[in-house]
């Protein structure tokens, strides 16, 4: 009886709030726009660094002749990279899903691709290739991991009973893939493509930051940076955002059409192939091979491309530059100094971003209203090329260290919040009801249920945040503060110091992978002790 009335009441309130939510979201957006307009019109923020929306629109209109060429160039790079990256990702995903050994061998490569800050290799790409290639490569790299892991998850979660039917008629590996697994993985693959689409746009823009090519929104942004024209910068930033959102929206539509299901915007951050089976000897052999593979691929790529050794450094070349060459000590000093600036910022920014996300996600358990009004913003921000908006933040915040922190916090906060809030929303319903039935206060609920239950998602958020934080810091250093690894990279680019360009790229990837591995080790240890499974 009591439960029945409670249920009826809660159904009633959700219906009311959903109507209310639409209305309040519109109202909030309107208030925001008006406030923005007022702030802009009266130059209340940072001496006019925040132009009013109408000013941005007017500027956009007078620049309208410039945009088509830039948008087209970015679109070309992004879409070609999208095709290539996702094509490879789906093939690789199928391979990893079918062969556990391949998955374990490919792990090193997958982690490296996941963790690599695109900005770090963009100068290398610009130096080694010409034309659109750097954009295509970075866009493809941006897509690869998301779609690859979506494919693996989709295939390995195929209903076993459907596989049994095909096997019962003697169907082999190929028949299983063709008739069941690929089709069953389709929703997951489409969800991967949806998340990959804005990533491709971001990849192309980041490559444009690195130079090479006159056209593209990234090139336009960099070119306009010196002109102290906030309205134009905002226009470009909004155009880039719109492009990413449209790319996302198109795939969301296709997905909804084809599978009638849209999934959450959480991005997978675990490479396949962690589980180890077989003897410890073969485990060690495979692990070593998986660590060696990225270096082998790096070396092979350079050999195949035939880039001159002066420009293209092999692993041995980088080692030589950093430890054996006459200039090695000077290189080491500069590198260590840069690391001394970049690492603390990365850690502080990441910790702050995660902490905010964690607190807000927990608060949303106590007061679901918070998450409801905030989630749409967080979801939109997830697909925005946030780091591409750095110039705007520079305008707002100046070129001090604070801009690094804000950028890092903003690129880690949103994905972490989305992961945590969605994770908490999934696990806690039943468990919360149990403690509520005993009259637990909101804080007791947090202590007994929400915080322990959120651990796997906190780790998932951390894995996601590591590479993003480093990317954010390096971009801010490159474009704004002129410090740290980002600046070292930019300077070396100017001096054509190839050894240093390669060194910074390699070191930043290694750091990112190292942090990522540390998170994984702690995660496995902590979760195993509590009998929990990692969240994807």
């Amino acid at each position, binding site marked *: 009886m009591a439960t029945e009335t409670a249920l009826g009441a809660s159904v009633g309130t959700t219906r009311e709030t959903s109507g209310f939510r639409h209305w309040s979201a519109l109202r909030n957006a309107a208030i925001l726009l008006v406030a923005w307009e007022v702030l802009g019109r009266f130059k209340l923020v940072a001496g006019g660094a925040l132009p009013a929306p109408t000013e941005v629109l007017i500027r956009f209109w007078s620049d309208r002749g410039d945009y088509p060429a830039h948008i087209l160039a970015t679109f070309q790079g992004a879409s070609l990279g999208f095709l290539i990256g996702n094509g490879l990702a789906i093939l690789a995903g199928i391979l990893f899903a079918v062969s556990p050994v391949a998955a374990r061998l490919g792990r090193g490569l997958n982690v490296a691709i996941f963790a690599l800050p695109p900005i770090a290799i963009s100068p290398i790409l610009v130096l080694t290739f010409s034309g659109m290639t750097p954009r295509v490569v970075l866009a493809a790299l941006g897509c690869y991991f998301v779609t690859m892991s979506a494919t693996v998850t989709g295939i390995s979660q195929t209903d076993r009973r459907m596989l049994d*039917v095909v096997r*019962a008629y003697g169907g082999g590996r190929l*028949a299983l893939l063709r008739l069941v697994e690929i089709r069953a993985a389709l929703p997951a693959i489409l969800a991967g493509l949806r998340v990959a689409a804005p990533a491709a746009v971001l990849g192309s823009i980041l490559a444009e930051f690195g130079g090479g090519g006159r056209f593209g929104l990234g090139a336009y942004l960099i070119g306009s940076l010196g002109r102290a024209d906030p309205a134009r910068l905002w226009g470009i930033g909004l155009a880039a955002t719109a492009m990413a959102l449209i790319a996302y929206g198109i795939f969301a539509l296709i997905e909804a059409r084809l599978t009638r299901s849209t999934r959450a915007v959480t991005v997978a951050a675990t490479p396949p192939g962690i589980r180890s089976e077989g003897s410890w000897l073969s485990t060690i052999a495979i692990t070593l091979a998986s660590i060696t593979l990225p270096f082998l691929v790096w070396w092979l790529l350079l050999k195949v491309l035939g880039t001159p050794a002066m420009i293209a450094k092999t692993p041995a070349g980088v080692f030589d530059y950093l430890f054996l060459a006459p200039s090695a000590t000077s290189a080491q000093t500069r590198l260590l100094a840069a690391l001394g600036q970049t690492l603390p910022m990365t850690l502080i920014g990441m910790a702050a971003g995660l902490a905010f996300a964690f607190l807000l996600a927990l608060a949303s358990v106590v007061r679901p209203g918070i998450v409801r009004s905030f989630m749409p913003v967080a979801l939109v921000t997830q697909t925005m090329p946030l780091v591409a908006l750095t110039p705007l933040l520079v305008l707002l915040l100046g070129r001090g260290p604070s801009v690094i922190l804000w950028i890092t916090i903003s690129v880690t906060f949103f994905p972490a919040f989305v992961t945590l809030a969605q994770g908490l929303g999934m696990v806690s319903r039943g468990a919360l009801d149990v403690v509520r039935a005993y009259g637990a206060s909101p804080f007791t609920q947090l202590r007994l249920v929400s915080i322990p239950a959120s651990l796997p998602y906190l780790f998932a958020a951390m894995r996601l945040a590591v590479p993003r934080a480093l990317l954010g810091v390096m971009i801010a250093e490159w474009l704004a503060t002129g410090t740290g690894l980002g600046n070292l990279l930019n300077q070396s680019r100017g001096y054509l110091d190839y050894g240093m360009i390669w060194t910074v790229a390699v070191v930043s990837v290694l750091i990112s992978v190292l942090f990522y591995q540390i998170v994984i080790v702690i995660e496995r240890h902590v979760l195993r002790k509590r009998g929990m499974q990692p969240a994807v």
Partner: protein
Amino acid sequence: MTSTTGITLETVSRSFQGRGTVVQALDNVSLNCPAGSFTALIGPSGCGKSTMLRLALGLDDATSGDIGIAGMKPQQAAKAGLTGVAFQDAALMPWRSVEDNIALPLDVLGRKRADFSAKIAELIELVGLKGFEKALPGELSGGMRQRVAIARALVTDPKVLFLDEPFGALDQILRRQMNLELQRIWMESRATTLLVTHGIDEAVFLADRVVVMQSRPGRIGKIVDIPLARPRLPEVFTTPEFHALEDQVAEALDGH
């Protein structure tokens, strides 16, 4: 030809490594189903019935012992298209229409769908799904889905037919109807049939022999022969002989 399509299990064992424990799902099971016979398998939940079926289908490997389907290894028999199967849960593919789901074995075996379109239509009619040819499994009820699975099991004209509780989700009336249909199909095709069921009446009505299993470890307790004449009509359910046989099976289930 009929002499070569039997099912033989010789001292078959299958154990599963659990967390710290070992579950003996099948312990030294020997069973011989002659070609063209109808055998019902009955026993408490978890006694290894589905495991036995999976072994006979080549979906799983026995820890020890030998299994022969029509004189071949299970996987060979499957590849040769001799077997048909309907699983405990329908296991339909949600993206395939009723027709396409029924045609799935043809796709796996690489047979031409066009040659079977009449057969598929006939099967759809048989399981009472006319008008639902293009429907997706998501649009069907649980019982309708199970009927699709039965039609799928029959599409290849199997010589050896495995049915794992195919009528579990059907109501009593439909179940009786399907029992009669299954008897008719079996008498026409004379496929060697192994039916797993929880219904004593169903087992006695359909089978030549009812194999009663016991659990922990999974083993064969008793085999009850059913000497009732064929074709068996619905009236047979109410005869004293039928009840006596049912009692025998029920006693064997209790462990007597």
